[in-house]
């Protein structure tokens, strides 16, 4: 093996990770993103990191590119000429949505998101099929043909007919007609994208797909050409929402599969770390400047869900479950009209950024508070490249918070940090409890530029059993891109009671799903290296949520039922053996494994223990606190809190009473020495 390159394009920065498969050496780098021509940032970054590592572009085996930003930009930019075809009578499927106000219920000014395809571009087609597959109205082929001819400059269409998730003949016939009459128009069929029931969610999924497809295809083709120009000729993959990777060409054909992939890469890296540390069950926290993403990793495996959304539009896809929770290092502190201190949801973003950046920001942020408290070094974040200006942070905190509330500067700053933690706490509790996990049974893996800053406060409040901070926390997402397998998912709806499913039928369904999976990943190989896993989605008849079990042997309704009762009890605390169990969906996952990587910790010899410098840091009182440099730490080093560990792009804060141990891969494991103290101790 040779080298792998991961490129994660974010809103402001593009993160890069280069790995030498043989030695395990890791290079990380960061360049500004280039929103106008996104591929420029990728090319700049690739050239820079390859140059620093002195690696030839030709010796790359694999490149993985994170594309969330491109998808979001296309969706928000809004220039694709798209149309929607529906069953006659149901053209308003996107306008009607679920008729649910999902914002603050007391806010009478709340507005739903605007449909992706506007009402004047919706065409009702004469056709109708029932949920049992009876054709009430045959597809009006002539109508579709004449519509296709009249669609003018439309570039892309979405098609969603009622019950097409089970009976897709009419949708597929529409595609055939367009291939014949208007091959220039790209076609997204709802039945190709998801097998789930619910016409609104399927129509929305198809609409998003249709809207993004033409632009994403152009972007990928341009990027591949540019990469070839600088000598990168290895396969280029992109991340899917389900945590696997697929080729750029496959992604361009089915964009919904790559949506929301950005935060997923971080979860994959967190899950990988959990696997290496013994299949831990953990909550991962990816805290950047403007947002924080939270996920649960169950025994080393990320959790999947069958639904997601993009800018308020449902997208039904198998996705790694990850929740954005708002607050980040740039979250702004303010005092409301009732005299209460608030943090967020407004963020200073990257521009102007926190007051201490000196780029014109005047509102106090979490980063400003961390600086005033001594958590951050005034020498700056990116290895000293950006100086932080304490006097500006101090001025903002005094003016906006300390003055109006009659607090001292450091009390106000401490309050901002604690409230930022409280907001995240609430979201993390919600995320874990709603999924049946007790935070006290979990460890927390915290990363991202600001992940080490409040990770310790959060871990104390949540009473998790330990806090892990990986090396290079700011580049974890890019690293996650390189750890993922190639993957393709297929599914088929059953909606039958367990005992009404015939084993032979099911085996046939699985075989045909696996054939599709193999075709999707064949990519010029024999397919001998592909693995298939079979799943069943189950529920008690009448429930609305499914639980998934693996179903790899012969189908045995008794075993399936028993297994379902067991996991239901495990997950929800109760099961009822008298209830009928329903098989909702058969699913397969086809995977081509990516070879594992063992990340090497720094091992160069060091004389004696780590030697900290000291500065005063505020933890409810000022404490003379040791400051360690991460690159000087070695596996098995231990030290006691309070402490601070600094490295390029990130800072980790340990509270008084914490105990820190450096693990073999260089990660920090922080545990409370005694039982958690109350946060009211002052």
């Amino acid at each position, binding site marked *: 093996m040779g080298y792998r390159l991961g490129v994660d394009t974010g809103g402001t920065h593009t993160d890069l990770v280069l790995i030498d498969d043989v030695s395990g050496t890791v290079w990380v780098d960061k360049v500004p993103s280039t929103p106008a021509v996104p591929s420029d940032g990728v090319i700049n970054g690739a050239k820079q990191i390859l140059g620093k590592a002195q690696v030839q572009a030709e010796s790359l085996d694999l490149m993985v590119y994170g594309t969330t930003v491109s998808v979001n930009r296309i969706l928000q930019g809004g220039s694709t000429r798209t149309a929607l075809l529906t069953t006659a009578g149901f053209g308003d499927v996107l306008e009607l949505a679920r008729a649910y106000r999902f914002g603050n*219920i007391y806010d009478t000014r709340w507005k739903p998101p605007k449909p992706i395809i506007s009402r004047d571009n919706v065409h009702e087609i004469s056709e109708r099929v029932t*949920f049992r597959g009876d054709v009430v109205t045959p597809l009006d082929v002539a109508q579709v043909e004449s519509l296709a001819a009249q669609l003018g400059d439309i570039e892309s269409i979405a098609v969603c007919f009622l019950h097409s998730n089970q009976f897709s003949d009419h949708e597929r016939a529409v595609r055939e007609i367009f291939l014949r009459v208007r091959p220039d128009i790209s076609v997204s069929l709802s039945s190709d994208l998801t097998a789930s029931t619910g016409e609104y969610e399927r129509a929305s999924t198809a609409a998003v797909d249709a809207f993004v497809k033409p632009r994403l295809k152009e972007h990928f083709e341009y990027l591949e050409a540019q990469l070839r120009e600088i000598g990168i000729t290895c396969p280029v993959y992109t991340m899917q929402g389900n945590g696997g990777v697929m080729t750029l060409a496959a992604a361009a054909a089915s964009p919904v599969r790559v949506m929301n992939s950005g935060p997923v890469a971080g979860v994959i890296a967190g899950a990988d770390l959990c696997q290496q540390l013994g299949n831990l069950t953990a909550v991962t926290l990816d805290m950047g400047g403007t947002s924080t993403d939270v996920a649960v990793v169950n025994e080393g495996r990320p959790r999947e869900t069958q639904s997601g959304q993009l800018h308020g539009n449902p997208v039904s896809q198998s996705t790694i479950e990850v929740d954005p929770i708002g607050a980040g290092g740039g979250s702004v502190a303010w005092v409301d009209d*009732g005299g*209460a201190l608030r943090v967020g949801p407004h963020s200073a973003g990257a521009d102007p950024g926190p007051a201490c950046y000196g780029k014109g920001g005047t509102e106090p942020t979490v980063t400003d508070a961390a600086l005033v408290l001594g958590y951050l070094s005034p020498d700056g974040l990116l290895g000293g490249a950006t100086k932080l200006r304490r006097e500006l942070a101090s001025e903002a905190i005094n003016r906006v918070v300390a003055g109006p509330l009659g607090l001292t500067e450091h009390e106000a700053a401490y309050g901002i940090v604690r409230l930022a933690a409280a907001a995240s706490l609430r979201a993390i509790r*919600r995320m874990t409890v709603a999924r049946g996990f007790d935070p006290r049974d979990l460890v927390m893996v915290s990363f991202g530029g600001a992940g080490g800053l409040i990770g310790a406060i959060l871990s104390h409040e949540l009473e998790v059993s330990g806090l892990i901070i990986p090396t290079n926390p700011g580049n974890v997402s890019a690293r996650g891109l390189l750890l993922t397998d190639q993957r393709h998912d297929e599914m088929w709806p059953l909606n039958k009671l367990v005992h009404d499913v015939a084993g032979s039928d099911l085996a046939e369904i699985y075989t045909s799903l696996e054939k599709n999976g193999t075709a999707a990943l064949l990519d010029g190989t024999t397919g001998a290296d592909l693995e298939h896993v079979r799943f069943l989605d189950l529920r008690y008849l009448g429930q609305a949520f499914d639980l998934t079990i693996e179903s790899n042997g012969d189908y045995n309704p008794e075993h399936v039922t028993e297994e379902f009762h067991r996991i239901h009890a495990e997950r929800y605390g109760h099961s009822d053996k008298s209830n009928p169990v329903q098989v909702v969906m058969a699913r397969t996952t086809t995977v081509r494994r990516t070879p594992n990587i063992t990340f090497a910790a720094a091992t160069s010899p060091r004389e004696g223990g780590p030697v900290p410098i000291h500065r005063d840091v505020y933890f409810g009182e000022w404490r003379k606190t040791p400051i360690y440099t991460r690159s000087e730490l070695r596996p098995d080093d231990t030290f006691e809190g309070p402490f601070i560990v600094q490295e390029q792009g990130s800072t980790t804060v340990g509270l008084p009473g914490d105990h820190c141990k450096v693990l073999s891969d260089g990660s920090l494991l922080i545990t409370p020495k005694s039982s958690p103290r109350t946060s009211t101790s002052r």
Partner: protein
Amino acid sequence: MIDVITTEVIRSALESLSEQMTDTMERTSYSVILKEGKDCSSSLFDATGRLMAEGANIPVHLNALGPCLKAMLREHFPIESLEPGDVILTNDPYVGGSTGAHHTSDFIVYYPIFHNGELIAFSTIFAHLAGTAGQDPEGWHKTIFDEGLRIPPIKLYKRGELDEQLFRMILANTNSPYEQRGDILAQVAGARVGAQGLLSLIEKYGWDVLQEAIEAQIEYARDRTKNQISRIPDGRYTAESQILEDGSMGGPYTIRLAIEVTGDEVHFDFTGTDPAMPGPQNCPMSATISATLFGLLALMPSDIPKNEGPNSQIRITAPEGSLVDPRPPRAVYQRMAITHRIVDMIFKALAPVVPDAVNAESCGLVYMNGSAINRETHPTGGDLTGRHLWLNMGPSVGGLGASADSDGLSAMASWMTNVATPSVEGMEVGAPVLYLQRALRPDSGGAGKRRGGLGTIIKWKALGYDVEVSHTSQRFAVPAAGLLGGQPGATSRWVINEGTDREYDLPPAGPTIELEYGDTLTFYSAGGGGYGPPEDRPRELIERDLKLGFITERGLSAYAPVENGSE
């Protein structure tokens, strides 16, 4: 004195706890209405029944449990009669007058929390349990006895022991006992999470600190509410509204409201409201309180904490035995008809003094439900001879009223409700019915500078036998009015077999009707009222509406009054 930061941290923890209770219940419950409709809410009260924190999903649940808790402590279970492990259940609207459950489908669980042997708080969950209000929940009931089993506050658990006999008796009175058993146990599980969570907060902060923080939050919410009320000029503002205004089912019935603002306090006085009707559109006092609080809080910043604070600035009086505070044996199942009206009346009464904060009138209540004998399409291949209930057909949406700065929302439930509409695909699997149309209703939004939201058109065909359908809609004879020059929305309409020689219209409400196999029902839901004169509407918005088909050439005339027959 507790510091502001700790107060905020504890507030966040308590609100988080209410959310966890609701989440726990949702995850473990069985009914679609709970899991997809999220028709449940959780709250934490202190031992005297004061609201500490609330995780409401639906506006009508706003402080829905406080009055019932106070009455229960007064009349059923004094504090000293409660022991650790007791769990109290009720669904009775007539607790303490009519301050109990909003209707018999609303099951309330009270979980007393003990600390050092002393009862200090209650963890409570309120959930809509489908199938608990008799065979025809949305039918035209004459008395509370038509609305299923009535459970006054009883101990479902005594010292941690489930009373299986009592539970069996309750479940035997529901439509699908296995679902309801799961739902009620999920509800208890959620309430238990609240109790355990509060105790661990006490362990962390100490009960003294926690109480201080709660007092500070209540005071904070009260201060902000006072501030907001003070901005409304002192005075007496009145509104009057009629339900069943077309005369059907003994109507019209009149609701009268006077809002008296004095400094930082408001008195909502329903004196003069008609006596309760011999039908289901009566509103228990508990629901009247929720609607009134919502109507007022909707005028204020939406982030004021929902705790006891705002309540102390508000006084509500209503004549005993009236539409807004009925007594047994009056039926109450369609109380939402009145709650929607109360909100519209508050907006209308205060529009002259706070025009930027209010909305024009909205579509109000829509119910549709049915059952049929299904010989063809039972989804699980089960019993093809039994009566198949169409649960939650859910077209309970129409147009909402416009406001000073925005058009009204189209195809949305009125303010007090917020339950997601099921998919056509899901409903066809669940009931012997074939949908022919579900669409926006063009030209139904009241014209105005800001247009009222559009209503919808729903059309389906019955594929079952001996079909029975119960239905209700408002804004039938008198449309949702516009505000400050805005025009009214379109009225609602029910048509059977539209476009055939067997076509006929239904009244807006009334007894359950019967249909034949193959009959169609078309429902046009009402549009919302417009805001401000139509001639002030920006040209580009009118053109956009035309392009998107929200208005047609016919609807355009409302915006361009023809002068002197020319143009």
